[in-house]
């Protein structure tokens, strides 16, 4: 593992020394050996603090949205999930490909449940690739949890989701960790439009949960960051993956973030779409 870490440090150091990027986003150590935190290296010497181990779990792509108009290119270590997030943000017109320098680092599987769902370890888009692509592990059954909930009766389902949204504390970590959530101002922060109250009640939490799933469902890249970020361990992906399962059934194989130009399901239509409203 350490020679890969060394390669990362060297490539970051070289980029910063050549002045090709303003700063490089990677992982750094924390007080605890089994946790890493995103670091923003802006000097060649700083590259020494880069870390690469099985605990480099955070997805780094969303930080690009904090600096959408950089003076110089931004360096970003990109695994499969980062590259899909970058494709997503490019398609959503939030980030320009030319303002990024993507350092491809094929992923070897990290110590988080979100990696269970991983279907693409290798970066789909990069400027340089530091080592050979990794073989993709057989991903867990994509819609297993969704089928579990679907099997319940309406009341059971309501009790299940009701229990989940009783525990939601509306900290919006799921929204702020999600690369698809790139609005300038979230609808939930705008009390005036009246879609949603600020009140922490089960019904307001439910409405936030379903609304966010509806907003991101047809563009979700299934990176699992939302569930990893949730302090209360709520099954947030259970909602977005229901959307993806339905889209798969309605219009065939559907996966997001694999490229930077295909339209999202709700952004287009087919004349012979399935219709049950006759």
């Amino acid at each position, binding site marked *: 593992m350490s020679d890969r870490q060394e390669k990362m440090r060297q490539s970051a150091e070289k980029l910063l020394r050549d002045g090709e990027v303003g700063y490089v986003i990677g992982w750094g150590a924390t007080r605890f050996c089994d946790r890493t935190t995103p670091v923003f290296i802006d000097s060649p010497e700083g590259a020494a603090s880069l870390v690469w181990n099985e605990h480099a779990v955070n997805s780094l792509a969303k930080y690009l949205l904090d600096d959408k108009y950089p003076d110089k290119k931004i360096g970003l270590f990109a695994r499969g999930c980062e590259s899909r997030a970058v494709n997503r943000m490019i398609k959503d017109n939030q980030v320009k490909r030319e303002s990024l320098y993507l350092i491809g680092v094929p992923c070897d599987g990290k110590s988080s449940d979100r990696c269970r769902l991983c279907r693409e370890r290798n970066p789909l888009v990069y400027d340089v690739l530091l080592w050979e692509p990794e073989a993709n592990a057989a991903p867990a059954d994509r819609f297993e949890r*969704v089928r579990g*909930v*679907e099997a319940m009766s*309406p*009341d059971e*389902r*309501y*009790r*299940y*989701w*009701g229990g989940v949204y*009783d525990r939601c504390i509306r900290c919006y970590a799921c929204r702020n960790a999600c690369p698809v959530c790139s609005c300038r101002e979230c*609808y939930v922060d705008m009390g005036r439009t*009246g*879609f*949603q109250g600020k009140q*922490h*009640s*089960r*019904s*307001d939490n*439910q*409405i936030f949960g*379903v*609304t966010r*799933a*509806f907003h991101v*469902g*047809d563009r979700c890249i299934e990176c699992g960051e939302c569930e990893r970020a949730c302090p209360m361990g709520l099954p947030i992906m259970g*909602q977005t993956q*229901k*959307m993806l399962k*339905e*889209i798969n059934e*309605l219009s065939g194989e559907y996966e997001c973030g694999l490229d930077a130009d295909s339209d999202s*399901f*709700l952004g287009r*239509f*087919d*004349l012979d*779409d*399935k*219709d*049950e*409203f*006759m």
Partner: protein
Amino acid sequence: MSLTEGFEPKIIAFCCNWCTYTGADLAGLNRMKYPENVHVARVPCSGRVNPQFILRAFQKGCDGVMVCGCHPGDCHYSTGNYFTRRRFMLMKRMLEYNGIDPGRFHARWISGSEAAKFRDTVAEVSERLRKLGPNTKYREALREGADAGKGGAGI
């Protein structure tokens, strides 16, 4: 005396101005009769109906929600209802996935000349909701019954 005897469901129907609203007016012109439960909210096109309105309607107290528009191909704005179709094919499933009883949300294509279809749809939905009873879901404070105001800190 079934639980829902004398219960009058409250139903909101988002109707597109060019087709279903016209059909509803036509039902009026022909003096057709249908139950009083459905209140029509006029929208320029069924494509204007934001799926979040449905969540809001259930939260605020509606027992049933309908979204009605032109038949695909007849939309006054040519493609509005194609988007409606996709949006509500998904939202209908999301609602049921989250526990809303399957009979509570309906989307239907009703054209300007299908006055009878409007009457029959309204009658059918009202009857079905009368049997389903009032909607208690999506309206609770935190834990069932735990009122944030009185003691126990609403946890």
